[in-house]
């Protein structure tokens, strides 16, 4: 198999080939490392590449598989971690100057679980500084580029992970999502990003942005791959106090099921009020395709959701400012301008402001719970627009000018407030060649239902098979 065929594999396909020993983990890993070497000077998707570790892990995987000690679908799979997941003995920067030399002495729970599943760690990916933004225009480790169109942002904050998957620099990655940081870059880079139910993946060892909004989760080429990674990292660890102990149904049993009888809600308020017309057209077409797959599509109204972004940002920035307070007072010059100013501003929030935001959040959460009595999932655009040019904080959208941060998180933040699962799956391309994302959002712990809809749609639409054309330097 040629190198570009290897780097274009999905996790599930590569797993079958590895298990059957038709390919080796070493050749798969070498192909990924060579592609990183060739492309990452331009893309800036990685902060740290762990080539020696990766090859050692790959050799071990090959030995184990040869002996029949197959560990499961991630065994021998080369993947990456957003550089916010603690890695024992490997620096974990959070994309910041503050933590540029931080080397953890323990692994994050998710890091350890991937290692136990036999995965191969290619490296740590670039992100918006401290995961506090949507551009991944990182002042300390370089501006990450969108593989579909250089000069455009990959989204964020998990932009390096998304760019890496889209460009074939590894088969999967873990991102984190506080207001949309898995799904926004997934949408902008044409990959699948799943934010699990809050507490399903332990946050232990993921450097915090906002305790009550942070989620860790998979970023992959397909929904089936996302399910495989989720199954490897989900479940309580006895250390994250917010972890939930529910067991998900097996992806193998759920993902292939038809959508007959499934009720899909399409919001009639807020979600389509501010949206690029091309993106709306692609999303409406995707909804039509889901209906053809057997689902019934029903309009739903979600009262109070208009306050979601304000609630999310007050909660997120207040919690983040609390975490950062000592550094803000003693090392303010070590922050990039945008993140530093946001965190400094958040030091002024009053306790009463935070509580008001949390009560607004409770109201929105109740609204969604009511909606999910009548439908199994709701679908919408992931982001109201596609990737924007690097360096632009505001962009035109229809007849208005919008903040890239605000519009980027406008729809994704809702599932962070409610803690419910939501997945972004590619739903087509604009005339400019940029991908758009369809978001599928379900009730708490319905992660496999969300991934089932994502899987059925992507199988029918075929968008995930498209890859960006990149010329190695």
């Amino acid at each position, binding site marked *: 198999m040629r190198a570009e065929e290897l780097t274009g594999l999905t996790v599930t396909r590569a797993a079958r080939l590895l298990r059957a020993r038709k390919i080796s983990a070493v050749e798969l890993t070498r192909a990924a490392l060579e592609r990183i070497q060739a492309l990452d000077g331009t893309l800036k998707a990685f902060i740290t590449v762990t080539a020696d570790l990766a090859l050692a892990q790959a050799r071990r995987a090959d030995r184990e598989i040869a002996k029949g000690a197959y560990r499961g679908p991630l065994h021998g799979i080369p993947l990456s971690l957003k550089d916010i997941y603690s890695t024992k003995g490997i620096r974990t920067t959070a994309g910041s100057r503050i933590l540029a030399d931080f080397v953890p002495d323990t692994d994050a729970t998710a890091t350890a679980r991937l290692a136990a599943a036999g995965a191969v760690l290619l490296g740590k990916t670039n992100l918006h500084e401290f995961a506090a933004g949507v551009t991944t225009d990182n002042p300390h480790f370089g501006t990450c580029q969108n593989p579909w169109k250089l000069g455009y942002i990959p989204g964020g904050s998990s932009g390096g992970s998304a760019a890496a998957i889209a460009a074939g620099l590894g088969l999967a990655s873990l991102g984190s999502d506080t207001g949309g940081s898995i799904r926004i870059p997934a949408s902008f880079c044409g990959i699948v990003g799943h934010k699990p139910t809050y507490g399903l993946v332990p946050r232990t060892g993921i450097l915090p942005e906002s305790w009550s909004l942070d989620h860790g989760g998979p970023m992959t080429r397909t929904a089936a791959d996302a399910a495989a990674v989720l199954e490897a990292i989900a479940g309580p660890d006895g250390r994250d106090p917010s972890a939930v102990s*529910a067991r998900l149904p097996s992806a193998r049993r759920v993902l292939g099921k038809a959508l007959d009888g499934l009720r899909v809600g399409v919001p009639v308020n807020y979600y389509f009020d501010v949206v690029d017309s091309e993106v709306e057209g692609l999303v409406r077409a995707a909804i039509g395709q889901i209906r053809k797959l057997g689902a019934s599509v029903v309009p739903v109204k979600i009262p109070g959701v208009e306050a979601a972004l304000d609630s999310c940002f007050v909660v997120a920035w207040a919690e983040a400012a609390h975490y950062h307070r000592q550094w*803000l007072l003693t090392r303010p010059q070590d922050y990039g301008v945008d993140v530093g100013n946001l965190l400094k501003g958040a030091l002024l929030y009053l306790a009463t402001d935070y509580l008001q935001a949390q009560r607004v959040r409770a109201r929105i959460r109740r609204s969604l719970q009511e909606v999910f009595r009548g439908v199994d999932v709701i679908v919408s655009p992931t982001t109201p627009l596609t990737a924007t040019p690097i360096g632009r904080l505001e962009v035109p959208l229809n007849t208005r000018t919008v903040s890239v941060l605000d519009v980027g998180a406008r729809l994704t933040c809702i599932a962070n407030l409610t803690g419910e699962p939501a997945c972004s799956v590619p739903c087509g391309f604009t005339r400019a060649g940029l991908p758009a994302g369809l978001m599928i959002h379900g009730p708490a712990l319905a992660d496999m239902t969300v991934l089932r809809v994502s899987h059925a749609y992507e199988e029918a639409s075929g968008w995930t098979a498209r890859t960006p054309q990149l010329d190695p330097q």
Partner: protein
Amino acid sequence: MIDSSPITPEIAAMLARWSGLGESAPAAELAAVFEVFRQRVERLYAVDVERFEFDFLQPDGRAR
């Protein structure tokens, strides 16, 4: 009654000192950030939350 006059750089400098930040950022930059944050909070206080308590996330129900 809420004071709706904009936050000036002088007020921003005072607020920055109050929050412990000292002179760590240009007052004009901070004034713009503080103003956006103040407007966000004002919008939140306009939402009726009478029937809703602060219920920290506790996902419930059965996995589907």
